[in-house]
């Protein structure tokens, strides 16, 4: 795992260094209009995207891509103050795409492959892997920023954008009730096993080279066939980004932000499961680089505050890497 961190740091520094080569004037003064895409995160391994790394691709509309997300957690194995901690590693490799349907409607699809493992204090390990829950969302653009024209009266300072989305998360990933038992992380799953409904609202505003994005997603989860019901989830985030254009690289877009998740209590056989609600707020740092039609990004998240599962689960950090091809 350490190697990924090092790679990401090197990448980030490299990009920053490059960015300094030509910090000021963009060569191609296009509208720096950046926005979030769908962001469904789960502190559990069973989220369709995992890791609150829904930062689509920063500047462009439609793409297909591949994303890797790593999440590090530790969970209490037991009910006492001195009960041992379990190290948990959630890995997600994800195929994702945003495809235009009409001028105003786009379709987002996420197909994750999950491979998670955890190490118990006695040295035992547990591995689960497989195709995760597939998500399909439709986004409708309510407000679209106007392209600037030649004349002053055809130009706007602030480029606003507003999108609403709705979608489904399909129970593709395997759900194993046995992993919900005991006192360790109930979210150690490949999928939730449930049909879930997603509503999303994204707003962004661009000003010169700067972009500010605010997003929120509500996932209404239902009971699965094994009569386990993961709690509803609200995800929100805010990101500030800036576009740099250089000769070699079309665009370098570093960003910084906050991302939060709030979880409702889970239910088992219709009865609430205590100590399953919680929330976490991450600070986020990342960058994306575009050369022609290819965009590559790295994204690092550290918890600022958290209270997951009554302190029984601790998020340590998340790392996301993506490679997208702009359509």
């Amino acid at each position, binding site marked *: 795992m350490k190697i990924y961190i090092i790679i990401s740091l090197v990448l980030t520094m490299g990009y920053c260094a490059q960015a300094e080569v030509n910090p000021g004037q963009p060569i191609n003064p296009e509208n720096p209009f950046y926005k979030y895409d769908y962001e469904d995160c789960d502190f559990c391994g069973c989220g369709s995207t995992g890791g609150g790394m829904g930062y689509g691709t920063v500047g462009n509309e439609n793409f297909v891509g591949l994303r890797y997300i790593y999440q590090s957690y530790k969970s209490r194995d037991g009910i006492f103050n001195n009960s041992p901690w379990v190290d948990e590693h959630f890995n997600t490799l994800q195929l994702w795409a945003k495809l235009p349907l009409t001028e105003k409607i786009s379709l987002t699809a996420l197909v994750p492959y999950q491979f998670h493992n955890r190490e118990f204090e006695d040295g035992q390990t547990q591995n689960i892997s497989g195709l995760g829950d597939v998500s399909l969302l439709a986004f409708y653009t309510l407000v679209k920023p106007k392209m600037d024209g030649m004349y002053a009266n055809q130009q706007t300072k602030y480029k606003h954008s507003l999108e609403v989305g709705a979608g489904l998360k399909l129970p593709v990933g395997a759900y194993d009730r*046995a992993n919900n038992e*005991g006192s360790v992380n109930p979210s150690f799953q490949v999928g939730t096993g449930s049909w879930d409904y997603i509503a999303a609202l994204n707003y962004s505003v661009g000003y010169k080279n700067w972009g500010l994005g605010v997003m929120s997603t509500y996932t209404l989860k239902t009971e699965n066939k094994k009569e386990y019901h993961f709690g509803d989830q609200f995800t929100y985030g805010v990101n500030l980004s800036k576009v740099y254009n250089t000769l070699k690289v079309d665009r370098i877009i570093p960003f910084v932000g906050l991302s939060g998740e709030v979880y409702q209590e889970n239910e088992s056989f219709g009865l609430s499961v205590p100590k399953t609600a919680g929330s976490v707020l991450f600070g986020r740092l990342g960058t994306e680089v575009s050369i022609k039609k290819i965009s590559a990004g790295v994204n690092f998240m550290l918890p600022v505050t958290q209270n997951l599962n009554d302190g029984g689960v601790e998020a340590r950090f998340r790392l996301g890497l993506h490679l997208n091809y702009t359509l």
Partner: protein
Amino acid sequence: MKFLQKTQFLFLILSLILASCSSDDDAAQSLDGENDLVIEFDNSFNGDDLLLGTSTYVNGNNETLTINRFNYIVSNFILIDAEGNEYVYPKDDSYFVVSEEEKMTEVTLKNIPAGEYVSMRFGVGVDQEKYLQGAAGQGDFLQVAEATNMMWSWQAGYKFLNFEGTFTSPEVATATDFKIHMGSHGSSLDNYKEVSVNLPTAALVSDALSPVVHFAVDANEVLDGNTKILLSEKAVVMVDEVKSPQIATNTTGMFRVDHVHNGEHGDH
């Protein structure tokens, strides 16, 4: 046209949300048949896992304990469902020793009728009615109690609690043995107590469902409970007309249900 599209889209979202709002509060699904109910006694000391021999624990009496034995008898289980109906577990089968050193921390109540159980009552120790049935009336439980150091002798009776180790305190600098053996002392002093606990989540029993009720049992309550029992005052308490009943009452405060696992047998 634009307006129409927007309206259509909003309608789509609304219908999705509404479709998902179907009632799924079906906890009171019909439960049929019978199954096992497992009770796990997870022993602890003031919030920490109880580890025999290795760890030291400081109690509120400013005494530092190393615990080498923590055994007790639980008995006469009664399960109470949401409607207040009580299921009394067959008395002859309702006596168990919980022993940390023997890793006997699980009690299985067999053939429990289907139901949604919200609380339970049980005894700590052996009641007079059972004891007065004589040695022959004790069944296999007598051997279990003897094997786990839970008998003085038949005449003296059962030890309901066998709590042993060493301690130090401001007055006692060198590690000194302590022994807390609490029981009814034949039929002259009745220290049998009943405990009542609520389950934080109902335990669901049916042909398909066999729950685990997970207790957190706090050994600290024995000395640092309702009445403070100072080891530096008396380190070996066996037959004591004052302290034994106090300890018996303290012992009832040890029991709390931490959580309930509902699920199929073998799931947990």
